[in-house]
């Protein structure tokens, strides 16, 4: 069974999906951060590939992208990071990437290299299903799960189209807006979960704005198959610039606390 499918098949409880920007603040620390997330119990690891113009991201992840690029992260570095993690863990790895990075390397080459490094799924942030033919085919050809976003503004017709092309899980965006920590999980997010559920059997993970055990509980109670946490994790990494040991400890503790709430 594919690694991502196995997570959702095995779990009775919702999955915890942790995001970090590859190479933030540098290659070595970033690998340690990823391993700490996995040690804490992260079920699926999302790795952001840093981009100069991350328009779907709020200030927290923008700054992580800047830190990563400033330390010299390239796409090759990101593949190295994946290979390092793969040596030590079988946790599913999903790329979050902006299309220009994929497009510039060559779509098929990018997906092939990702698969060879050990990546399981790829979500292209600025790739709506209407334009996705090429990346969809490249994904299937290279044993990568194509993952798509669904938001509050997605119509029912488009939900069906998107669900039909999705493998692994669907990423439901809990807010209207960019990534970043929010106070609470809105009722709109929970309504979205109910609405999408009508159309598909693909596991549904809620992300954007989720950061506390309370948020996680709310999502679990509403029937989410997974919660995705990004900015809160990036915050912990950025709070410990000189002290990777403390960073590891905090990340591990954070993930286990979130897992308990699920």
């Amino acid at each position: 069974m594919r690694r991502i499918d196995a997570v959702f098949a095995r779990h009775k409880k919702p999955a915890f999906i942790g995001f970090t920007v590859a190479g933030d603040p540098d290659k070595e620390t970033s690998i340690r951060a990823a391993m700490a997330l996995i040690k804490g119990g992260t079920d699926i690891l999302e790795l952001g590939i840093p981009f100069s113009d991350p328009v779907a991201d709020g200030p927290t992840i923008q700054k992580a992208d800047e830190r990563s690029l400033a330390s010299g992260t390239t796409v090759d570095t990101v593949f190295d990071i994946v290979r390092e993690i793969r040596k030590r863990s079988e946790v599913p790895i999903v790329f979050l990437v902006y299309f220009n990075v994929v497009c510039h390397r060559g779509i098929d080459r990018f997906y092939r290299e990702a698969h060879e490094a050990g990546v399981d799924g790829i979500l292209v942030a600025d790739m709506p299903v209407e334009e996705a033919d090429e990346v969809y085919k490249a994904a299937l050809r290279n044993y990568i799960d194509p993952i798509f976003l669904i938001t509050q503004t997605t119509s029912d017709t488009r939900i069906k189209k998107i669900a039909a092309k999705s493998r692994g899980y669907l990423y439901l965006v809990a807010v209207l807006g960019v990534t970043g920590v929010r106070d609470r999980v809105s009722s709109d997010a929970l309504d979205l979960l109910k609405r999408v559920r009508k159309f598909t059997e693909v596991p549904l993970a809620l992300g954007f704005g989720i950061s506390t055990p309370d948020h996680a509980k709310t999502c679990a109670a509403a029937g989410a198959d997974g919660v995705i946490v990004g900015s809160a994790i990036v915050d912990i990494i950025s709070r410990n610039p000189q002290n990777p040991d403390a960073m590891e400890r905090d990340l591990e503790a954070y993930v286990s606390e979130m897992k308990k709430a699920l």
Partner: protein
Amino acid sequence: MRKKGRYGKYGGQYVSETLMSALIELESAYDAIKRNREFIRNLAALQQEYAGRETPLTFCPNVSQELGCRIYLKREDLVHGGSHKLNNTLGQALLAKHMGKKRLIAETGAGQHGVATAIVGAALGMPVEVYMGEVDTKRQALNVFRMELMGAKVIPVTTGTRTLKDAINEALRDWVANVRDTYYLIGSVVGPHPYPLMVRDFQSVIGKETRRQVMKKEGRLPDTIVACVGGGSNAMGIFYPFVKDDVELVGVEAGGDGIETGKHSATLCAGEAGVLHGTLSYLLQNGDGQVLPTHSISAGLDYPGVGPEHSMHKDSGRVTYTAVNDPDVLAAFRFLSEKEGIIPALESAHAVAWVMKNADRFDRDDVVIINLSGRGDKDVAEVAELQGRVA
């Protein structure tokens, strides 16, 4: 590849999912309104009574004498607000109002598009917020004050390179968060479909008038039309009605310190295909697909992308794209001011500079039209400051 919104292989809709419904809504609203008689009448009335169209096609006796050909200026500097930008904002703001949107947001580089959006916001009674790179708020301080005078809120952008590219990033982030009641009024032929199409349609008034005017004055089509290219809206506006004719079309990009120095904004001359701000087009990027910082003396051309239709014309060779460097631009800025008493915007001075540098190519009775996309008042303070450095 999906055909919709494509210019050859370029264009498309590469945006995050939240914006797709807004683009679909925009596309169908625009499709419906562009044939609507009342809309056409309202827009024409505003263009005439409010914006001051049509703008003259001015023959320049002194410059023509000096350069040895027949030079005309299409006077977009005389449009209300001081540039061609109002042609587009009038059209899009009427559309936004028709769609029931409550708030306009825009990005701006030189401040001219911000000013043009502030103008329509005041005239049509809609609140306006303008994102502007912090670097640009300083070098175009006069335009910041003009926008504020007309009731717009200017939001300085402190991320990335703090210029036009980053202003667009922030405007897109705002739009994603407020997509239900906010209209994003893009200022050039860039962005996802249908923006490049819509902005080109609204700017084509420049070329349509030019065609009528030159036929009347010269009894024939011009030999050459020259326009500066930032995002490419003034160029597309004047080129479009001539694309099928035997007229040479020249787009002039910002060479900055020189393409070989890497400090420039000459996207079509030095870029490669890539995706930024929702569209596939030429892009200044590094080997890893990261967008490069740009430089130009003119804030309005300081952008690493360009409209997708230009990319198509570049590949087909229908339009010639070239670049001029900052010192030549400053010389042209002074030359046109001295010879004709017309102070061009630094953006437009790129087109003037190209004609000055290529005067040898033209015969006495060749007709050359320069799109004077804007007036230079906004640039006077910066040029005065630069006198010592570049002159």
